[in-house]
């Protein structure tokens, strides 16, 4: 099945290569200053649908090489970074982007973690409050040893105590 998907993707890619190869010569004449770094800058934020989770700039497959050639060609034609990204999204869908675009159901990916974290803080604060309220230990006791430097003995005592209970 995977093989089938792979070969399925090859069809548009082959077409792209043909387009790209025919375009490369033209592109290089039009704008010879497109560097590998320019290409990688855009490729870094793109993912081809075949090599999951490997960004385009480091992916070694032929398919990704062809995508990079295409980026080079488009850059040579004077396209902007955004235009090139949009081109790939239109061709292959949102999955080529490193992050889901912020719209529709995709908002969930951005909103759920912070909301869950806020909920966690809320629960934690509530729990701490209720524990403190229920403890019946006056706050003053907690601060009783605050004034003045604690004598070294006290630190030793605490340390020894902690160590003893850890045995």
């Amino acid at each position, binding site marked *: *099945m*995977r093989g089938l998907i792979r070969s399925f993707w090859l069809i548009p890619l082959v077409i792209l290569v043909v387009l790209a190869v025919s375009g490369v010569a033209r592109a290089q004449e039009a704008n010879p200053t497109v*560097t*590998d*770094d320019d290409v*990688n800058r855009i490729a870094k*934020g793109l*993912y081809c*649908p075949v090599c*999951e*989770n*490997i*960004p385009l700039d*480091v992916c*070694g497959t032929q398919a990704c090489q062809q995508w990079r050639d295409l980026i080079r060609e488009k850059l040579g034609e004077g396209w902007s970074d955004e235009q090139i990204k949009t081109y790939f999204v239109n061709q292959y*869908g*949102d*999955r080529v*982007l*490193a*992050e*889901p675009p912020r719209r*529709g*159901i*995709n908002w*969930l*990916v951005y909103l*759920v*973690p912070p909301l*869950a*974290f806020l909920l*966690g*803080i809320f629960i*934690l604060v509530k*729990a*701490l409050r209720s*524990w*403190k309220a*229920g*403890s019946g*230990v006056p*706050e003053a*006791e*907690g*601060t009783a040893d*605050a004034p003045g*430097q*604690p004598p*070294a003995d006290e*630190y*030793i*005592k*605490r*340390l020894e*105590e*902690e*160590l003893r*209970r*850890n*045995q």
Partner: protein
Amino acid sequence: MLANIGFGALLITAILSAYGIFAAVYGVIQKRARWVDSARNAMLLTFPLLTLAAVSLIILLVDNRFEIQYVASVTSRSMPTYLKITALWGGQQGSLLFWAWLMSAFTTAVTLRKWDRDREFLPWVIVVGLITLLFFLLLILLYENPFMKYWALPGGGIVGALFRPAGATLFTPADGSGLNPLLRHPGMIIHPPLLYLGFVAFVIPFSFAIAALITGRTDDRWIRLTRRWTLWAWLFLSLGLILGGRWAYDVLGWGGYWGWDPVEIAAFMPWLTGTAFLHSVMIQEKRGMLKHWNMVLIILTYALVIFGTFLTRSGVLSSVHAFAQSAIGPAFFGFIALTFIASLVLLAWRWSSLKAETQMTSMFSREALFLLNNLLFIGILIVCFWGVIFPLISELATGQKVTVGPPFYERATAPLFSGLLLLMGIAPLAAWRHSTVKTLGRAAWKPLVLSVLVVAGIFALGVRHWAALVGFWLVAFVTGVTLYEFYRGAMARHRKSGENLALAVVRLAGRNRRRYGGYIIHLGVVLMAIGIIGIEMFQQETQGTIPQGGELALGEYTIRYDRLDIFDAVDNRNVARATLSVFKNGEYVTELHPRRDFFYDSQQPMTIPGIRSTMEDDFYVLLVDWLPVSTAGATFKVYHNPLVNWLWLGGFVFILGTFLAAWPEKETEPVLRTVPAQARRLQAYGD
């Protein structure tokens, strides 16, 4: 023959496991010790039997028995023997067998030790261990059998089957397709077993937790009994993650160590809950609090261990449809759901007996800060979990897959990781039970001043990246606090007993290895943080095609492309090896050899970087491409990774600290007695 022996051993182990589960439950309920002993014997037999199965498979692998499907899929004649052995975990079926084998080793080890002391828990530990084992064995037997053979049908065509189909003859391919070249690396040989060891070892504390819930012994006995098991599990998992990072850096050729790939995250998630658990159990031990929470954490860890295996094994990551088509996907899903719900039901059943014995008294006490630490770990877990499963949700809801890549994770987790570092600096200074801003401030001011001075120094050196400065401040602060804790403890001993300071440090750490091992782990983390700040915030890269003798510059470095050699190596691969001279500020420093290996058997390439590594920076060069006809030009990708070696050094210190904390005490086990709640309260008030 050998395949049949292996398969038979698997089958008998599965039957024995089912019997052991029944015998243990029946024995406990009917109070018949003989049944429980019989269950234990069944448990003890699983390990030798699975060893037989695993060794059978290893022999088949080493012996080039390509009529076995699995052998043909992961080995080839040209592979050296040690790689053929490691091919045991180089594919799906072998991995599952390996998992089950390690699992039985751990549960067997637990039941061998202290049987009489832990008699009340152990029957249930056996039950939980065997249920997990049985699940994996069923997966192997029903869906992912590594002992399947190729058969040539009379009418033409090759099929895979365990037993001879009517009229078929055994078919032996001339050679196998070989191990994925990415797996032919020392890091990859040891990394999966360590992860698996970490995974299966976490089943032990979970089993004890469930045993505690079932038997109603909900005090901290189960925690004390499993303390070292948990630390060892955590050690293996940490080591597996660190080595995985190193492998990625050396082999994957993208100049990094961690790519937020779902497979990485799958192993990272149980580590997160495991780390939270290691911290929060201390609160239960010291203060008799958070009993529910510790149960939740260990239940989550177990679920995530299985979930992690599920993610990497079911194909769900490539597509939810692949998941639906693979037989083991739904089985995994069902097992996770079942064990998770059953654990929660047990927890709900014992909810009231898990009440805290004491109460929180101060927002700045160490226990309150540990709770905050737990919140941050869970926060990172939520980000990871959600990031991994969102593409699946999206695919189900809209039919379209999306990629959740590194930018998402980095943005979401960076503040949480920073918060954890800050806590690492504050919590060791806080006292159990009560601390105030004042007492904390009094303990913290010296390290604080020191850390500000360090950052001022870094600023003076010209670093203006604000996030990096915050990072370096946190690193300096935590280092200051941790070293100060060693110093304070050692000084106290020194003043009291007159020991010299060095001896005092050693004795101090020796007396409470968990505490000071923990501090060394903290030091390891800050060293790793230095490396991470360096590579994440100051990494530079460039790529260019240069002719022979041509140069490519990046920052202070320049490379000169001297030549390219293309040759066939003995182990059936074609090597293209470039020779580069590296200059720093115009001066020659070294020669590098980035290369590309092409493996004929698996038809896959592998990119090996040329790295010049110092504590200051790594200069990392990849051979991206070359012109095949002449060696006139080649394309190189060059990375400058500042400080990245601190990451590996930190990893080493981290593991060292964990060893110190986890190494068994000389006197076999601490005397275990239940401290009455009242006495512990008194003790706690004593500090």
